[in-house]
């Protein structure tokens, strides 16, 4: 089998998968900030850290 084909498909899936992850994560981030009425970086970072620890 063409090694470039295997590598290429892996890279493509990873790139597209990471893109989808970033989009979904960002969407959640935007909704959380809006729902919890967070404002500055300090508040948002604290909330994100809190979410992660839970």
């Amino acid at each position: 089998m063409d090694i470039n084909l295997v590598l290429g498909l892996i890279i493509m899936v990873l790139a597209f998968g990471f893109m989808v992850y970033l989009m979904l994560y960002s969407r959640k981030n935007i909704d959380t900030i809006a729902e919890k009425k967070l404002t500055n970086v300090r508040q948002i970072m604290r909330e994100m850290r809190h979410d992660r620890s839970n």
Partner: protein
Amino acid sequence: MTDRIDDHSISTELSRELKLFHLTMMGVGMMIGAGVFLGVGNAIHYSGPGGVLLTFALNGLVAMFTAMSYAELSSAIPRAGGAYNFARVAFGRSTSFVAGWMEWFASSVAGSLYAVTFGIYTLHYFEQLGLLAWLPVELHTAEKIVAILVASLFVYINYRGASETGKTGALFTLGQMITLGIIGIAGIWIVVKEPSRLQNFQPFLPLGWSKLLVTMGFTYVAFEGYEVIAQAGDEAIEPQRNLPKAMLYSIFFVTLTYLIVAFAAVVGVKAGSPGVEGAVWEWIGSFNEKGFGMAVQRLMPFGGFLVTLTVIFASTSALNATIYSATRASYALGRDQMLPNIFSKISLKQKTPYVALFGTAVIVLVVAGLLPTMDVASSASMMFLLLFFLVNICVIKIRRDMGDELQYGYLMPFFPVLPILAIIIQATLAIWMHSMSMIAWIIAPGWILTGVFIYFLYSKSHSISTSYEIITLEEEKAEETAAYRVMIPVANPNNAIQLVRNGFKLLEAKQAQVELLNMVKVPEQLPLYNAEEYMWEGREAITEAMIYLTTYFPVTTTIRYCRNVARGIISAAREKRINMIIMGWKGKTTRKDYIFGSTIDPVIQKAPSNVLVFKNCSETLYKKILVPISGGPNSRLALEVAGIMCDPEGGYIVPLNVSPPGSEILDIEQFIAKECDPVVGQKVLEPRYKISRQISDAILAEVEDFDLVVIGASNDQALAQLIRSTIPEEVADRCDKSMVMVKATEGFETLVKRII
């Protein structure tokens, strides 16, 4: 020197009519444009059947990084102007003017390109149908006339209002998505029917991996749609939420679309079919930019018609979006009086910036009608790339400098890794971009130089201050005689004297040049020109402090305005190359997000100098000083400050190290011998060591016997600010004695460690 403050209000505003769907469609419309048709064929030609898929997947990911930078900034600064606004906040007037000037031109010229593409494809299709025999002019002239007509139509639609623009754009973008969807489904269907078509992907990368950079280079700029979404800050409904979402969704949809249609193009041609000699990818690639159309013609009946229809939809939706984008860029320049104020005039009835639109229309029509559009348009790609660089830098600088004061609707993850990565990859891709034509090499620098010229001749003197800027209201400079500069920010007459008394011995020891700074607070809801009404208290505070200091030290006084006092102090410290900042702290803060308060916390965290915070200090010298130390630059500075504030008549310093059980214990004597001035060492008594899990409690149990506690701030200030429970900060909070908290300037190594 003082700055001018102008009334910044605008009587008529743009109307908020664009929903998430409209914004996403505008972004998608601008991105797909003609890119898919020109890009697919060329990408197959240069990097083969697998290369085209990898190109779009990787470019989509890199574009996502930059889109996230745009999204974060648009959520925090949701105003018309896009990159211009971000640069204005991050870097000030000159850089932002050039950014806005490039945005205006690049978007306008892209609009001309789409208008001409529409003209070429439409007439080409009519010609194939034999409907152009009656034409009294040459085909080329007719194409230009059609381009001018379609551009004029979309200028009119843009004039009718944001809602009409958004709805029209959405309609055409939906049209192109449907036609591209049909092509994609046909591609998948043919593979299901004939799986052998997947053999077209072998060899996957016939020309090697290096060619990927070439194809990524010339297709990357097609992913530019977030620029138009950023321009809609004044017209989007719920901009803080919808702008970032629209940017991210549009990149996702466009990448997916590119991948599907590129896949369809490759499998659309049957190997060995009539006319197809050699590998399929070679056959498609041999047609270069027409390769996509040729492949789709083989894929399905009426393929040629479908491609023409898609080009018409794509070029018109992109034309619509680029005219919108360019108009808002010039409107923003007019709004801030970087260009004559007339550019910000808004139609009372339509709520559109009609003068800015007229200016944009002139550029679009002249380039489309009179100039070799393809050549001129290649300069726009380079300008967009420069703007993307700038925005990725802005996102880092703005979050660092203004993260506490801006209201963000979105924060990008993996910060600052992703914007840095985007900058590096874009710099690499720039090398591989299409070589620009001679005309583009003349027009691009010519436009930028004209902008620089206009800035110095007009914008620099006419532009108004924005609420994000720091404005010097008054400044009296003393002769510079000392190398060590100490800044004392004073807020009101009551604490000014106390603060300069606290710092007096330090100023004396350092033979310092003193900078007294007052930051004027103006309530958010009031315009900037009200700043001068709030100066009197600051003037009084500075006068009181001056009386105390002026006999002993050279004193410069400055009164500045900034919406955020901390940023004003940090900026002044950076600008005046301050070595030490002395501040006062009353004790408890009412803000639960902060340890010492919204002014002191950011100063401790970000100031490019040593910072001393005094609490409950009423004397200039002290007899018994406790210095809790744990090693590092903050402990060294704490000992130095303690040495200066220690009474030469019988005063002494007791260093204290409290370590948790099982951890390595700092050798205090060795630390002092290595890191401190011998004069300090002479005042130090026997060090104390304690082992305790409750470090704060152990320190607080010792302070009763002392007059003053000098403690170094937490080494990791970012962490301290985030968790608000580090030991020095907890001690500072709970200690009732006189206290000084010190934070040393970050060395390069510390800075790198912190960033990592």
